[in-house]
């Protein structure tokens, strides 16, 4: 078993994990950044732009990913899953498995020839199943590291990738590698999932292809998205009428997510503004209960969206059905005026889903989590990044829903707390 000694193990490499790793490493401490996916970057690298500045998400995240990959104090461990965490007298023992990519990582030159010749098309999870990829492929354009992964469960073992590889680096017999990481401190930055598309049965999101998730819309809006343009997934039509259904996956006890996810109003407004830029003739409507624009510059952003002609309709969407052409039909009930329920047809509907924790089981670490599965702080007001276990800190959405600026601030807080903790225990041992 490979053994690694470091100061801080950061679990999860979304924007919170990237920021925390860089802050700890810049302070002169050794970091292991552990990521279960083949690339670092998390959710943020797949977003189109960020609110309220409308900066390109990829342009912000990519330099941080590059900085992490080149930092002398950061050991970037991608495609690696933590299986067990044990607390001991000196800190923590993390037992992880580095999954096989079936390539020689040191030799690969990222030429993509293996991907070109592979005859097996599979769903592209990075594009949320909107387009295909090959059974051997680099996860996405700006993935770090730029290394392909062979999905052995989908490989037909034709040998084409191995025969074409100019560096002869395909290794079908590569095995998973066990790694023992010894760390003084752990930072949890495991991020979020979104509520499932079928959480609200009345919205029929699984059976109506033109009812999509906000992350799918992010990909449609992204410059390197699956179709290069915003079109309907069912038939490629350029949508003339797009609707957002707010609180479609949060503030609802019936689906187990009674809390507000804090970002849905703003990402819906952001996407609506981007849509009005890319599809100037389209009508865009946001059906909402109330708009929560609480951050710096958010209210102005909301006002700007209204001024751009985006329709904000205070109404509850009772159900969604589809007409014969697959266009979603929304049954809405206005919240402000007394009127009968109406049925309104749109070309495309986005369900503004909420955030739920990506990880709830911390593999032997007796972390206190709240009733919704987020990691609890020991003191929410004065020491939010400290968990119930000394030496374990939490940041980003693993602690609760938050936007990107709050996540960055949170990651900095966790990094400083981890560094101070290490200083305190090293001081004691001297």
């Amino acid at each position, binding site marked *: 078993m490979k053994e690694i000694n470091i100061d801080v193990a950061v679990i999860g490499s979304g924007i919170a994990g990237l920021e925390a790793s860089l802050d700890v490493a810049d302070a002169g401490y050794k970091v292991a950044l552990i990521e279960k996916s083949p690339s670092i970057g998390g959710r943020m690298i797949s977003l189109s732009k960020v609110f309220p500045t409308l900066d390109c998400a990829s342009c912000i995240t990519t330099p941080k990913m590059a900085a992490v990959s080149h930092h002398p104090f950061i050991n970037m461990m991608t495609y690696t899953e933590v299986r067990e965490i044990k607390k001991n007298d000196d800190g923590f023992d993390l037992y992880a498995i580095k999954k096989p990519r079936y390539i020689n990582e040191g030799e690969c030159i990222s030429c993509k020839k293996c991907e070109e010749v592979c005859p097996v098309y599979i769903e592209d999870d990075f594009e949320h199943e909107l387009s295909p990829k090959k059974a051997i492929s680099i996860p996405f354009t700006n993935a770090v590291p730029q290394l392909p992964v062979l999905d052995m469960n989908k490989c*037909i073992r034709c*040998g084409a990738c191995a025969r074409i590889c100019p560096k002869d680096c395909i290794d079908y017999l590569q095995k998973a590698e066990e790694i023992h990481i010894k760390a003084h401190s752990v930072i949890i930055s495991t991020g979020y999932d979104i509520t499932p598309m079928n959480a609200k049965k009345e919205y029929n999101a699984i059976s109506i292809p033109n009812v999509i998730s906000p992350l799918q819309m992010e990909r449609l809006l992204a410059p390197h998205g699956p179709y290069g343009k915003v079109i309907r997934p*069912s038939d490629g039509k350029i949508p003339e009428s797009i609707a957002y259904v707010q609180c479609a996956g949060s503030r609802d006890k019936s689906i187990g997510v009674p809390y507000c996810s804090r970002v849905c109003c703003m990402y819906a407004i952001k996407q609506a503004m981007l849509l009005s830029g890319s599809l100037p*003739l389209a009508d865009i409507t946001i059906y909402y209960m109330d708009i929560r624009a609480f951050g710096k510059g958010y209210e102005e952003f909301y006002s700007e969206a209204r001024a751009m002609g985006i329709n904000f309709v205070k109404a509850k969407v009772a159900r969604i059905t589809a007409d014969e052409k697959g266009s979603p039909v929304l049954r809405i009930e206005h919240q402000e005026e007394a009127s009968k329920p109406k049925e309104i047809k749109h070309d495309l509907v986005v369900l503004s889903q909420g955030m739920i924790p990506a990880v709830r089981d911390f593999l032997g670490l007796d972390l206190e989590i709240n009733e919704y599965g987020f990691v609890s702080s020991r003191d929410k007001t004065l020491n939010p990044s400290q968990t119930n276990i000394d030496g374990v800190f939490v940041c980003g959405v693993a602690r609760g829903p938050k936007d990107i600026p709050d996540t960055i601030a949170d990651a900095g807080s966790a990094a400083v707390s981890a560094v101070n903790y290490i200083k305190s225990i090293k001081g004691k041992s001297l």
Partner: protein
Amino acid sequence: MGSDRDNRIKQQLEILNDEIGPVSRTLIDYSAKTNRLFNNVLNSIKVEPKDIVQISDETGLDSKKVLWILAGLVKYGKAEQISNKSGYMKYRAKQEK
């Protein structure tokens, strides 16, 4: 030298088959069928650009599947999208060099 490499690849694949069992028939059939569908869609747009509804009518494929395939053909450089301001996007096969 090339045959040494081919032999090594063949040997590796044989060991792999022994270790984890042969590739399932379902996967082989899926792969063959998917490639046939990709070819059908590509052939459909070789002569003139078409939109997804036209390709769907011609190939008998579900329009959602046609779009998925076209996204793959564009990604791997075999087809291109023709800009359209409204209605349906059109696609055509790229000329083979």
